[in-house]
């Protein structure tokens, strides 16, 4: 059994006077111990909402999330289920996720205390993420964006998580720091035996670090598979479009291919397959019935 098992998860956002927005509309995903799963998709597809639901930060409206065999209960007013301390998250913006008024060492020590770890020092954690230990005495503003994200990773790992979640952890960083930080997250998670759910819109980085990839579109996961396989032979037309749109730094001057149309409003999704209005190979059935998932949600690839 997987360490994290998400089954048919539904998350709604409600605003008074407006129709509910179904940000996650029946998504299933699993992460095994020591496995790195990359969750990719474009803005508004629900990938961050899915991650927040897994942490218990937003309540699930339907479906089930099981973590190490137990259910994930939503965050209470003043407390979080102690079992969920084994899920740690690294957020997108290290300028906002670290407390500017506390020394970084003290913030890492919080994580160590949560795990009851009296042996490891904050300085030792900093060294694990490639920063000199003496920097534990410094404040967040004394570090660059890439260094701050390393500190956020050290703080998350200090709590000895069995599941580490990165919600766009590299998108605020310079291009040259992105691959380094992503690789660091992968290595540290795998070394400690934790699973890593890595959420990103940057497919080239996900390709570098993920064992398995899950592609999300408008609240649904449309394709999953081993990273190399999905990359070499994407089956869902959306995955294909996504991969063709990435500009390669090969100096050849090839313009990437665009995917015409806009992502539909999640409050009013299209009938049938959610991708059919933009799909270049849509058939009649696509507008009528939603394709079943496994491992590709497409009428061209019925479940085996």
């Amino acid at each position, binding site marked *: 059994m997987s360490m994290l098992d998400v089954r048919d998860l539904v998350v709604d956002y409600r605003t008074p006077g407006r129709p509910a927005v179904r940000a996650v509309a029946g998504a299933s995903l699993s992460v095994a111990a020591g496995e790195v799963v990359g969750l990719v998709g474009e803005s508004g597809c629900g990938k961050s909402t899915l991650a927040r639901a897994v942490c218990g930060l937003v309540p699930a409206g339907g479906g089930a999330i099981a973590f190490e065999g137990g259910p994930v209960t939503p965050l209470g007013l003043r407390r979080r289920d102690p079992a969920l301390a084994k899920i740690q998250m690294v957020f997108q913006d290290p300028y906002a996720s670290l407390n500017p008024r506390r020394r970084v060492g003290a913030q890492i020590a919080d994580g160590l205390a949560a795990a009851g770890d009296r042996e490891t020092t904050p300085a030792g954690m900093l060294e694990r993420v490639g920063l000199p230990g003496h920097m534990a005495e410094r404040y967040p503003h004394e570090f660059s964006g890439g260094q701050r994200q390393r500190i956020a990773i050290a703080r998350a790992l200090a709590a000895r998580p069995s599941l580490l979640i990165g919600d766009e952890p590299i998108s605020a960083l310079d*291009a040259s720091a992105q691959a380094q930080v992503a690789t660091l997250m992968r290595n540290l998670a795998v070394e400690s035996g934790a699973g890593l759910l890595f959420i990103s819109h940057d497919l*080239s980085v996900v390709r570098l670090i993920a064992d398995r990839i899950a592609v999300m579109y408008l609240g649904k996961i449309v394709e999953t598979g081993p990273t190399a396989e999905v990359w070499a032979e994407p089956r869902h037309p959306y995955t294909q479009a996504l991969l063709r749109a990435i*500009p390669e*730094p*090969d*100096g050849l001057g090839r*313009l*990437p291919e*665009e995917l015409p149309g806009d992502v539909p409003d999640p409050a009013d999704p299209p009938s049938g397959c959610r991708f059919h209005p933009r799909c270049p190979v849509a058939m009649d059935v696509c507008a009528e019935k939603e394709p079943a998932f496994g491992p590709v949600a497409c009428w061209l690839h019925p479940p085996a």
Partner: protein
Amino acid sequence: MTVNDRLDDREDAAPVLSVEGLTVSIGGHEILRGVDLLLRPGRVHGLAGESGSGKTMTGLAALGLLPHGARAGGRVALEGRDLLALSQRDLNAVRGRDIAMVFQDPATSLHPMLTVGRQITEHMRHHLRLGRAEARARAVDLLGKVRIPGPAAAFDRYPHQFSGGMRQRVAIAIALACGPKVLIADEPTTALDVTVQAGVLRLIRSLCDDLGLAVLLVTHDLGVMSAVADDVSVMREGLVLETGPRGRVLREPEHPYTRALLDALPREES
């Protein structure tokens, strides 16, 4: 005929904008330390570098949009006229007419309370003294050129009624309103999703080819650079380290820093 053949005859075209020894300092800090760039009609010049390298400041200086208290030196010549030496009044006449800019985030660069039509025609009426009807006809035509569906209806809509990609197309239409010779695009696709980015990159490339626009494309993304730029300059700490044709700089970089940038990209070992 390939893209390269088509562009070769443009390589020797006279530069429309030349930046020579541009320096900018703010409060004693040197932000730009002598930048040289040549923009030619019909060519996209990519300016690469990491945050803080001075690439955005170079774009802003070319428009005379320096932050308060900044001191600029050197020359920014638009067809021979030094923009740095112009009075505010003369600069205002050039800005938006001969040289225009597209910013990173169309959600903040567009005015949220004015229709897109109003935002496009404002420049035309001011700079070109066009009448209301003529300006409208031209704006609708422009909205069509940047491939906004239903341009006549789009004219009366507000920015929030468009998606991110469409908003950036509107921002490009505004920049093109007075038929500028130079377009400065500062990370124009960084806020967009990759499938939407592809469309905007194709648009910028075709505008450059069809209208003979000289484009300065500021981006940290070497993939974007490789897709649309003809020439590439790499900046670090206020200096241009390397300039050359796209293929040469990205495939056989001469400067170790360019090589380091390329090596840092997540690519499979080949």
